[in-house]
């Protein structure tokens, strides 16, 4: 393997793509360093899939420059295809073929690549080699798709929503595989709308909304940018509509930010031990009863909420 470790694995500048009146990608810039796992995190419809398919050379952008492994799609498509591994969102592989036959087929497209049996073992489908694709579970199909993506021994791997629609156990299995691939020195670009997935897998995360990168950094940096390590959520069900306001709550000891969404308050909190007693005291002073109270460590989800005012899952 000769990994091109000198330059970035992927560089995208000023990317733009519109479908009729709908602007899917609106001036997007990205740099993915060789050997890193880079995540595009955003809600459905944010432009992640359009972006990744432009990077994969499957969609032609209206404007912008895409450099993959130092090459351009218009000049070096053939070479790039040999060096990339791609998993599309929602590809249904031929149901009547077996696992073995499917991976063999994809192996035949590459002039150099990995041993088919070994790849099937890597994705833990060794026992299913002779099974028809149509008989596999969702997680097994997704692992087979990953096998097809890595059988050409790619330097750069694109994974579009690799775990969407899977049960928690299958997701964890795929995560382990992606961590292993990352450890073997491959660069990985993945899209996801699961913040836990981005946190767990990615060295760098670009939060994408409305076709733009609205925040960029490692998961730790992004969370730190909130200025708060915890989030307190509470409801005060009997309170009149204007009984609480952002300014009051922000002024509480240890609270750095506050917002309300559907009658549910969320406080960004730097020190839980000071903020919670202060909140309870404030509610008592105002004669308001507490409904629910929950706290969690700040996540990328909270970063997204703080940036857009919307939740990832219902954005």
């Amino acid at each position, binding site marked *: 393997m000769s990994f091109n470790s000198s330059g970035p694995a992927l560089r995208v500048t000023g990317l733009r793509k519109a479908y009729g009146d709908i602007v899917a990608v609106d001036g997007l810039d990205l740099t993915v360093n060789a050997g890193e796992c880079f995540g595009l995190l955003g809600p459905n419809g944010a432009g992640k899939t359009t972006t990744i398919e432009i990077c994969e050379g499957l969609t032609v952008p209206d404007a912008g420059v895409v450099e993959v492994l130092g090459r351009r799609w*218009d000049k070096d498509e053939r070479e790039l*295809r040999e060096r990339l591994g791609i998993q599309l969102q929602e590809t249904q*592989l031929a149901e009547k073929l077996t696992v073995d036959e499917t991976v063999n087929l994809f192996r035949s*497209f590459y002039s150099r690549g990995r041993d088919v049996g070994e790849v099937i073992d890597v994705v833990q489908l060794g026992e299913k080699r002779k099974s028809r694709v149509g008989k596999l579970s969702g997680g097994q199909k997704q692992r087979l798709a990953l096998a097809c993506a890595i059988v050409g021994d790619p330097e750069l791997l694109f994974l579009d929503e690799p775990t969407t629609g899977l049960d928690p156990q299958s997701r964890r299995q795929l995560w382990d595989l992606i961590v292993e691939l990352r450890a073997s020195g491959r660069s990985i670009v993945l899209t996801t709308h699961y913040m836990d997935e981005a946190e767990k897998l990615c060295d760098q995360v670009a939060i994408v909304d409305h076709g733009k990168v609205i925040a960029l950094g490692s998961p730790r940096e992004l969370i730190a940018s909130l200025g708060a390590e915890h989030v307190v959520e509470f409801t005060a069900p009997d309170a009149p509509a204007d009984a609480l306001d952002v300014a009051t709550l922000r002024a509480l000891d240890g609270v750095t930010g506050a917002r309300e969404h559907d009658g549910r308050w969320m406080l960004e909190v730097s020190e839980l031990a000071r903020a919670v007693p202060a909140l309870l005291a404030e509610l008592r002073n105002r004669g308001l009863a507490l409904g629910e109270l929950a706290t969690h460590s700040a996540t990328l989800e909270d970063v997204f909420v703080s940036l857009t005012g919307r939740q990832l899952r219902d954005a």
Partner: protein
Amino acid sequence: MPEPMMHEPTDAKRSWRDSALAQLTLVRFREFLREPEAVFWTFAFPIILAIGLGVAFRNKPADVVVIGVVTGTPVGDSLAARLAKAPGLRVQNMDDSSAARGLRTGELALVATANASGGVEYHFDDTRPEGRSARALTDDALQRAAGRSDPVSVSERKVQEKGSRYIDFVVPGLLGMNIMGGGIWGLGFAIVEARRRNLLKRLVSTPMPRSHYLMSFLFSRFFFLIVEIVVVLGSTALLFGVPVRGSLLQLFVEQLMAALAFGGIGLLIASRAKTIEGVSGLMNLTMMPMWVLSGVFFSSSNFPKVAQPFIQALPLTATINALRATMLQGAGWSVVAPSIAIIAAWLVFSFTLALKLFRWR
């Protein structure tokens, strides 16, 4: 996006079986053979159809024509007596109203009654062949019974030659229809299904040479074509003695050209369609006129003269004409050349357009 260059494997240990073209062609075989319905429609259906038609249109001993005689009057009764022993006729005596009903429903080919002047009146439909032959047989019998003698002496020799029966006519038609279905259904469904499943897009995201994907369809069609020809020609030759009078090589070339042309048409139909429903409609729209017009079950010359240039230009008409001429008349290359030229024109036209329009995602 530019078409990728030719595939050049650098890994010497890998055999031809590991090449993209071989693997893609194997996929075609596997997908086909693992679909029992497809196997049935391709191989068993034409044989069953040929047997069914062969039985329905078997050459029966010269048919007996059923006629009615209206009895109850002296002339009618004597008419019935004179016709009773006439060759080739079965005479039913009946009253006026049941005779009229029998004629209307087609159970009787002709009704004979006494007319006002003491002679005989024939009631029959002269657009029906049975009506006309009943008229000739009945009249012949009556005139002979009345003492007519024929001035010309004739002798008869009966012939029933293989190659001029309905089964002989219909087998080339079925072969042509099968080649059309194989090409259009075979490519149309498989390609649109792959596009619908996002599989085409997944394939072009690899270094797979796109031409190899399309060639895999032609290779598998070529193989199945040989099996189809052997199965259909073999079984009809065995069961009915359907002849192949011309050269086998010529017959094969005609079918190969036709298979490629219909493959091209299938590719063209599938070049942009995104749903199975959409492509089914297009395929039926394409094939329906040819099923009717191209002379599968009856001669296309039955259609009006003005429509003939259009009908003769259809690829299935050209295919069936060439197959019939070769199988039944033993015609040589020069006879079938115009048909082959039409097929070749369709081949070039459909592939050129299909490759221009083809959408990989």
